[in-house]
Structures are given as C-alpha cells and as structure tokens.
C-alpha cells in the first residue's frame, strides 16, 4: 500500500527533515511511527498524504507515485486517504454534522445517505447526539474525535493520523486505538504517529522508529515492541 524508496525531504529553509528512508507498509497493516518531536514523523505522514513531495526518492501510495501525480489528480488521491491532524482543523462556523459530512459532500454522496453515515462515524468515536452542536461548544478531546470521525466517514482504504490521542485521557485514547485496530482488521491500512509509548506497548503492532529524519528501527508486530529511547 505504501512504499518509500530512499526518500529524502529537504525544506526550502535548508532543513533536512528526512534522509534516505526506505520502508513498506502492506495493505491492511497497522503501523505506529514513533520517535521524538522533530524526528520527522509528521513529514512522513505529509508525504504519504501527498501534502508534500519528496526531494529525492519515490513515495508510492496505493500504486500511485506521489512525485509524478498531476495536480488535477491529487483531489481524487486525497479522497482515498483519511487524515487526522494534531490540530483538528474543524470549521467553527458550522455544526459538527456538517464538518463530519464534508468528505461525503465532496465525494458526491446523495444527501439522504449522508445522515446514516455521519451518525455511524460519530457513534464510532462516541459522539452520537452531538451532531447539531458547534465545534466551539465541545471540549478539545471531543473536537479531536470529531476530526477522527471526519477522517473515517468516507471509509477510506488508508488512514493516517498524527498524534490522534494527544488530547485524550488514557481510557479514551485506548478506545480510539482499538477503533483504529478494528479498521485495520477489516482491511484499512492505518499509520499512526504517536509519542504515547504506553499505547504502542499495549497494541504491539508494527512500529517504525524515526530519529533525526532516518528510520532507526523497523519492528515487526510479532516481535516484542522495542521502544527506542534517544
């Protein structure tokens, strides 16, 4: 599903965020990206979502090479990737329902089918009943969960998340990760960047450790998780 081949990313200000990363993620796998802040986890996620393009090397997602992807094909590509950011990026001028429904509107789903799907997504994150509220009326944790609902509502084959449990209490964080694992069980490829080592330990999934822009460890799901401490 995802293949990084000797990928390097250098930003215009000269900072080398990633150097020579090579790894693969298979369809239906769930992978954690761990590492310290600034190690390059967010960059990897941005490259996967085609929000950035690599300076060197190739990134292939779902069979598509993001470097050669034409601008007019990018929207279709993004419709197949559910993205959860650290900053939830909800629109404050409309209710939760509209925020979550946006990917469905973009995909052209008829309005009558939207209701069911939005409610189902909100139910999965435990926010059923809050559709009519404005995001401003929710707690930070609830806002984060709305962002997750929006990412999953269109049932994308690939889900990437940058610190999705950062604002959640440990029980809720666990619930959300279980949700992600359920997605992975039904064939969704899930890549989660997190520093919550407790979660990582708990879930014993495959783990990619990133440090200083390089892959420092590629720990398989069947081995005991080794958390790299730097």
């Amino acid at each position, binding site marked *: 599903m995802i293949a990084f081949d000797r990928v390097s990313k250098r930003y215009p200000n000269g900072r080398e965020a990633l150097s020579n990363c090579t790894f693969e993620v298979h369809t239906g796998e769930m992978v954690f990206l761990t590492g310290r802040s600034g190690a390059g986890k967010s960059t990897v996620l941005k490259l996967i979502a085609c*929000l950035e393009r690599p300076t060197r090397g190739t990134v292939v997602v779902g069979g598509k090479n993001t470097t050669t992807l034409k601008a007019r094909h990018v929207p279709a590509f*993004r*419709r197949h990737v559910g993205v959860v950011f650290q900053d939830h990026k909800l629109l404050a001028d409309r209710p939760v329902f509209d925020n979550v429904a946006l990917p469905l509107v973009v995909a052209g789903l008829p309005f009558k089918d939207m209701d069911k799907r939005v409610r189902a997504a909100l139910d999965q994150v435990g926010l059923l009943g809050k559709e009519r509220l404005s995001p401003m009326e929710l707690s930070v944790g609830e806002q984060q969960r709305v962002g997750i609902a929006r990412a999953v509502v269109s049932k994308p084959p690939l889900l990437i998340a940058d610190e999705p449990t950062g604002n959640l209490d440990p029980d809720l964080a666990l619930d959300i990760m279980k949700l992600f694992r359920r997605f992975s069980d039904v064939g969704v490829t899930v890549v989660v960047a997190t520093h919550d080592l407790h979660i990582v330990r708990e879930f014993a999934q495959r783990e990619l450790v990133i440090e200083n822009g390089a892959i420092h460890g590629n720990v398989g799901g069947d081995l005991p998780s080794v958390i790299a401490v730097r």
Partner: protein
Amino acid sequence: MSVTGSRHVHALIGSLGRLARTPFSTTLTVLVIALALALPTALRLFVLNAQAATGGFSNAIDISVYLKTDVPLAKAQQLEHSTRERPEVGQVELITPDKAMEEFRAYSGFGTALDALKENPLPPVLHVQPRADAQTAAAVESLRRYFTAWPEVDLVQVDTDWVMRFNAILAVLRNLLLIAAVLLGAGVLAVIGNTIRLEILNRRAEIEVTKLVGGSNAFVRRPFLYTGVLYGLCGALLAWAIVEIAVFVLGRPIANLAQVYGSHFALQGPPIDDVGVLLATGVVLGWMGAWISAARHLRRIEPRA
C-alpha cells in the same frame, strides 16, 4: 436530481445564503455594480429616445426644389408625382406660383404693393421631406443630387437644420456609449474580482479543509462562481430599476418640454431586448470576474499540516 445538478443547486443556495448574511457589504457591492451598469444603459436609452424624438421632428428637414419659372403646371405636377414615388421621400408638396404669391402676400406684409407687379415672378416649388429613416447626411445629399439632375430645376435648397447636427451628435454619442460600456464593464470585472478575492481570503480555512478531504478544483471554485453570478445579476437588476425610476421621474417634465416644441414625444423606458442584454451582461461579467479571481487565488491555497 443528478449529483452534478444537486451540487450546483447546493453551491447556488450556499452562495445566496452567504450574501444574505452580510446584507450591508453585499448591498454596497451590488450598488457599485448597478451604477457601473446603469450608466451605459442610461446612455443607450438617451440615444434611443433622442432618435425617436427627432423622428417626430422629421418635418424639420426640408428640401426646397425651385423649378424654373417657365415650367408649365402639368409638368410640375408630373415632377411632383415622380418625386412621391421615390422611396426616401416622405412628403411632397407642390406650391404653384399662384399659391406662392398668395402666401407671400399674406405673410410678407407687402400686401397691396404686390399688385403693382404685372407678372408673378415666383417659381413653382416642391417642398420635399425625406422619410424619418432617410434623414442622414448621405441620404439627403443623394436626394439633392437627384433633383439637381432635372433640367427643369433651377435651385435645390437643403435646409440642413439642427436636426442633422443632432443626428451627427447622436452618432458621436453612440461611439461614446461603446467606450463607456467597455470601460465600465472592465470596472465591474474588477469590483467583482476583488470581492471574490476577499471572500476567498476569509474562507481560507474552509478551502484548505475541503482540499484536504479531496475536493476538486471545480468543487472548491463553484460557490465563488455562483457568488460572482449573483452579484452580477443583482447589480444588473438594480441598474434596471435605477433606469426605470429615472425614466419615471423625468417622464412628466420631458413630456412638457416636448409639447412646448409641438411634439407628442414621451420618454420611453428600455425595451425588453435591452433589459435582456443588461441582465445577461451582468451574469456574464459576474461569472468572468469570479472565474479570473478564483483561478488565481484558489491555486495558492493548499492544506498545511
């Protein structure tokens, strides 16, 4: 309804709602557009009405064809008939020497002094008025040449009255109208383009998120295009209203003025064709202004992490 249809309806209604939510700034922008569109419309209306008015003054252009004094009456009448046959001629009147003498005696004040004349020195005259649509300098000139060609004609006098000058002024105004229309049209494009640019800036967050979840460029652009169209259409409607109000207000005084000049002229509002063109222009300018602005500014907005 198909998906595409419902997307367009959705975008249109969304844009309508957004405009309604900021009534003050929307009204100001619509007013500017309306004024820009009303000016060429009013100018064109002026030209149309002026043309209609001078149509009513068609008896002001007068060609006097003086025949030689020895032309017999029968020949003069024959000439009168053949003149009447010509397509550009509206009215012909033959003034025989006797009739001319009577008029002269009545209007000149010489009265009895004329009795001293043994012979009537006055020639027969044909008063010719060209038809209303043949009152251009070229048509009148061709008529003059036609009469001059007759052997019986002594003198052709064309009364190039103020009406001819007026027609010439109208021709200049028509060109001015074209220039004004182009300039003001560009102005409308600029106003709408700028308004759309500001709206794009204000809705930056929404645009980023929409692009993030995979909204195509057409999807993101559509509501802004509809906003442009709505501004253009409302501006055109308001321009129409402004012109109609002006016509209403000026109606009475202009009718009075016309009566003083002996005409039954009444100020006409814009014909339905012109209104159609006005509304269509509003819509097209609105769409174009929005498209140009949106294409430029939307391209720069991409989702950031």
